């Protein structure tokens, strides 16, 4: 069986910095794959390449067996790869509900020029999705009137509303209050499992990684240093020293001894 997303030999350098230095990675259908590693290791660059935002200087990416390199982001998302952002990308002058409805509309297109965006079917779907993320009470707030955590969730909810086969999330829990973090990820995981979405997420919180990831890929200087089930990878002494060692206390402290 071939992988859902397969990257081979990706290389990309910005000036002298190698953001991708021969990345080979296969994401299997249905799994949750966590990407960890220090800042500047090229984690976001990988997401940017897989969604068509950056083009690698060498290598190949296939999605469901189809080559996607060179396609613009809007084509790739139509094939079934959606993403959320490290810095939430909401439409700041629209309400949260309108943001969601726009994502649903984007999925459903083409559009008739006169039918309203907030038609009953889309409104209901948007509200249901917001509800599952606990955002329903904020539906009428403007995108720029949310706190960081809510913005982050709404940003992910928009990507989920696109009903992708594969969802790439860039630090989904950064900005979410520590007390809410596990509940949020729990919800997210439930929604994704229900709809059979495969997920790749960049994460700094090892507790989240340990609990939700099926596999972990460790990034370092544009390469994958280790890949495997969380228990094995997080126990690896070199990973612990190079990656977890520089993470905040709480995360390091939680890793299995």
């Amino acid at each position: 069986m071939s992988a859902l997303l397969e990257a081979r030999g990706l290389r990309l350098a910005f000036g002298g910095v190698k953001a991708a230095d021969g990345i080979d990675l296969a994401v299997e259908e249905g799994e949750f794959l966590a990407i960890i590693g220090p800042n500047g290791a090229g984690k976001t660059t990988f997401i940017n390449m897989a969604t068509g935002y950056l083009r690698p200087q060498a290598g190949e990416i296939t999605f469901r067996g189809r080559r996607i390199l060179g396609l613009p982001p809007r084509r790739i998302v139509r094939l079934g790869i959606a993403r959320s952002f490290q810095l939430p990308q909401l439409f700041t002058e629209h309400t949260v509900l309108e943001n969601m409805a726009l994502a649903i509309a984007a999925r459903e297109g083409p559009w008739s020029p006169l039918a309203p965006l907030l038609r009953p079917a889309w409104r209901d779907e948007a509200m249901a999705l917001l509800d599952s993320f606990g955002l329903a009470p904020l539906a009428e707030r403007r995108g720029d009137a949310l706190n960081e955590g809510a913005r982050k969730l709404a940003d992910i909810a928009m990507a989920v509303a696109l009903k992708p086969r594969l969802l790439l999330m860039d630090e989904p829990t950064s900005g979410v209050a520590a007390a809410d973090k596990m509940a949020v990820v729990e919800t997210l995981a439930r929604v994704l499992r229900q709809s059979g979405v495969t997920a790749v997420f960049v994460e700094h919180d090892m507790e989240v990684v340990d609990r939700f990831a099926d596999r972990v890929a460790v990034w370092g200087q544009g390469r994958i240093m280790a890949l495997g089930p969380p228990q094995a990878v997080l126990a690896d002494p070199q990973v612990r020293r190079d990656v977890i060692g520089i993470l905040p206390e709480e995360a390091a402290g939680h890793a299995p001894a």
Partner: protein
Amino acid sequence: MKRHAELLLALLGVLAVVLVAWAVPWLRFVLTIALAKGLAVLGILLLLRAGQVSFGHALFVAFAAYVVAFLAPLLPETLLLLPVAALGSALLGLLVGLFVVRYREIFFGMLNLALSMVFYSVLEKFYAITHGTDGIRLAPTRFAGMALEGAAQGWSVLLLALALSLGFGVLVRLHLASPMGQALAGIKTREPRLEFMGVPARRVLLSAYVLSACMAGCGGALIAMTTRHVTPALAYWTASGELVFIAILGGAGSVLGPFLGALAYELTRVYAAALVADAWQMILGTVLLLVILFAPGGLWGMGRALFARRRAA
């Protein structure tokens, strides 16, 4: 509910225009011009939703006006000339739009300006065809086959302008609430996100651009039929600036804004010109300054604030 209130206001506005034109006949001309400009400004409003300012939409006004001027001798029928001219402007809009929607903000504004100035100088310099700055005079056209004279002719164009304003107003109102219109507003705040959702942002902007060119064309055709004299000045950059001026004066919050702004603008202009012939521009400029400094929501925003205060009291 709000939609119904806007429609009611629009119908009241139509009634008011008809009454004023009937009571003060010489204002009929001014009102027709105002509505024609309002149509063009409606297009500016559409682009403003996307955060883009065109400083060259007079191009489409002037193009349609000259189409009418050139075709009138061959096809002296108002009800045919107008759609042909509007369609011509829409096609030109498609052509120009394919180029300019690749740019944003200042570059978008300046390219529009540049292209309208190119058209301006073509009109001015190719005297053999366009009669240069002298312009072209138009014979009266028929209306649905009838040869109308004087007041009847004026009324026919005014009523046509009213019908178009109402029609396009409703159309744009619906369009703005549609996914396309909402995505247009998304271009202003978060264009990359649109792309990551699978929405081709440039195409969304292009369709708005073509619609705006078409409406500017309708305005231009009406202006040609009302003034019966077209000159290159229609395409000069200050004419484009005037359209943006009216959009801000009226307020970008409602499709009624452009018409409100255009009526206020033209009436101020007429009375200011009568009062101080050499300084009407100065008076309009001062009005614009005051509006931006003290009522950035324009006349529409001002009216709404007043209404809200009265209701709260």
